[in-house]
């Protein structure tokens, strides 16, 4: 049983349930749609944008560290390898998970969810909903790297002695994360159940 099947439309903004026929929410004035008219378009659009931004985020240096006139530039992966070289396996693991595994996992998860809307899925609707919830929850934590860069850039400004500047990758990465978050938000989890209904079990 869904709202759609019950002939009701819930406002996605304030959750007031309306009778069909209302174009806008009587309480908050948001447009009412039983399902997002753009459908999966937005999800894919944000997803592609995020993926595009993720490429330079990995190619270009994330951090430019100048210490006593000695300047080093590190990409995300480069930084991970450097940390490994310094035997900081724990930190390397955190950075690797936060900056590589999570974003990549999000791309894969969102793509999987979006693709599984109109066809049979190996996962149950409930499992997919959990997946979606995890993606949405964990998405913000991908910003960990960006935060580190931002804080370092703000705090470590000791002129000649030590200097940290964000690289192009930092911006790219932040955008990439933002786009994937938007992508995840654009995904209407109700669609999961539509398929479920259409395919009665």
């Amino acid at each position, binding site marked *: 049983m869904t709202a759609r099947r019950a002939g009701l439309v819930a406002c996605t903004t304030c959750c007031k349930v309306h009778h069909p*026929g209302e174009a806008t929410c009587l309480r908050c004035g948001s447009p009412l749609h039983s399902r997002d*008219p*753009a459908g999966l378009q937005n999800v894919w659009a*944000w997803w592609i*944008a995020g993926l595009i931004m993720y490429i330079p985020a990995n190619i270009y240096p994330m951090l430019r560290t100048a210490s006593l006139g*000695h300047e*080093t530039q590190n990409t995300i992966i480069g930084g991970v390898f450097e940390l490994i070289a310094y035997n900081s396996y724990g930190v390397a693991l955190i950075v690797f998970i936060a900056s590589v595994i999570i974003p990549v996992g999000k791309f894969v998860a969102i793509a999987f969810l979006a693709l599984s809307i109109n066809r049979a899925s190996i996962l149950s609707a409930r499992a997919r909903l959990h997946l979606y919830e995890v993606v949405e929850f964990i998405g913000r934590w991908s910003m960990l790297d960006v935060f580190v860069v931002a804080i370092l850039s703000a705090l470590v400004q000791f002129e000649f002695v030590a200097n940290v500047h964000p690289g192009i990758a930092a911006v790219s990465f932040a955008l990439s994360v933002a786009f994937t978050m938007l992508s995840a938000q654009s995904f209407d989890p109700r669609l999961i159940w539509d398929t479920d209904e259409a395919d009665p079990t």
Partner: protein
Amino acid sequence: MSEDLKPADMDVTPPSRSPWRNLSLVWVVPVLALLISLMVAWKAYSDRGVLIEISFDNAAGVTAGETTLRYREVTIGTVEKVGFSDDLKTVEVAVRVQKEVAPFINETAQFWVVRPEVSAEGVSGLSTVLSGVYIDSSWENTGAPAVDSFVGLESRPLIDLNEKGTRITLRVSGGKVISGGVPIFYRGIRVGRTETPRLNKAGSAVLIDAMIEAPYDKYLTTATRFWDTSGFAVSLGAAGLKLDVGSFATLISGGVSFNTFFSGGAPVTPGQVYELYNDEDTARENAFSRVSSRTLTVATIFQEGVSGLSPGAALNFKGLKIGEVDTLSAFVSDDSETPQVNQLVTFKVDPDLMGLPEGATTEEALDFIGQAVKGGVRARLNKASLLTSSLIVELVEIENAAPAVFDREAEPYPMIPSVETDLPDLNATMEGVMERINGLKIEELIARATGMMASIEAIASSEKVRAAPGEIVGLIEDARALVAGEAMQALPGDLRGVIEELRGTIAKANTENLVEQLVATLKRAEEAADSLYTAADDVPAVVAELRQVAAKVAGLKAEELLDAATGLMNSANALIDTDGARELPPALASALVEVRDLLGDLREGEAVRNVNVALSSAKDAAVSVETAVAGLPGVVNRLEGIVTEAEALIATYGARSDFNAETLAMLREVRTTARSIAALVRTLERSPNSILFGK
């Protein structure tokens, strides 16, 4: 679910089948993202710059991705790759250079790795201690096409290619070697620096390239001299102890200075080679230009030996060096009967050093020398210094020099006339002087001098000595007056006049045929002459006695002085009083009277026979008279001697009143004698003929 909640008719808009019509605005975002990404990628690619390759022997500290390439301290690129050449002999460094800069990097470009360097002149490249090395570059913006493969330098080039100035080469023949990077000073201002020294091809000299920065390079001429100011120099000479210390930097790392000591140098061209002298004095002395293109060669011939003269010895003109000896050779001259070995010496002369105006030609210089030779200038050997045996040649002005010309057409070179020098004598004299100085008994001399001084003081302080001078002066004046008397001096002349008259008379007698009585007359004349002779003979005896007495007196001791002096005076008186002395004038007079009588007889008589015999006899007589008279000056001289001795005597004994009186008495006697002689002379003078003719 309640009944009234009927499912309403769903107003569900089915998803449009046309993707274009229902395209969401959100698609703008990925498109923008893609565009931006592509733009960034394309920009990164297009800005990537140009890859150049530099090969280094040693690329210590160069790291790919970190080491930067700088030009004028601005980063223009980054090392992208560090690898080896195929044979592993050099390190190939690939550098990504900004594409704005890359077109200017041409074949003149120099690359070197900057490392920290501490030297006496300061610390450089300190920033690289912490930041790591970087590659520095320098090139001339000649507009030449860009090149992308270079060979890097081991260290910073000492001369910046963009510096304006003149590159020169210093030549060091011996002594210490200047290291690279040494500052060059002009009047104490730093105007350049040297590059790394290198050997010339033969390995006989060290060449050091150097850069004189503009605008100071305008002070360079071919007449410029360079010298080493490294460290400090201590010299001990006639001027005393001299200590030369340059700046602190030159004390440690060395330095080079230059100056132009004389005018007339030509402008230099890049690459001009200069000799580097050991110190300023040498440079100044060596102002003779080895590089002068207008050196002229002259020669001279010395008859004397030239041992000690060597090529390179100075040719001085009025004390200034104007050239140096070039060659020495000997040849035998065959224009005289006895072959003589001549020394041909040739000189290199620098017209600039003769003070000729700038740009004087060789011809003008030869003219100048020609004029100088006309004015008496000759070449002469001289000692280089008092203590060495080496010689130099000097052009000196000889007064009243034998006429000579500057032979400009001579072979092989124009010939300057030479004069002999008294060089060997100089040697001998020097040796003699040295020996004499050695032989002097200085101590003894001083002892004697001290004794003498004491004696003089004792004598001078005695009262007697103080009283003496006045009297002595009076005495001497008297004596002088006597001797200087006109009559005394005129005596010989007068006597000669008498003889002349006598001869004239005899000649007259000859003509008057007075020969007959001549034999008898002559006999008598002979007798008269004999007596006259004897009388005259006595005078020297008197004088001799006087002298003996004087000598005796001189030998007496102080106690006997008075007695001896008195005795002397007495003796003198006695002597003067002797018949011989007193009768001298009367004897003369009587002799003359006799002669006069004889001649009177002759005149009156007619004795003309035996004229020849008479004549010869008369001659003999005249000779006798002359001899007798010749004794008179002797008498006068002896009298003078007596006076002198008396003076000496008086000087010895001082002012004893008795002695003085005696002396004066004696002198009075002497004077009387002299007066007698003078009277006789005057008589003869007044009427010489009277002796002969009795009138």
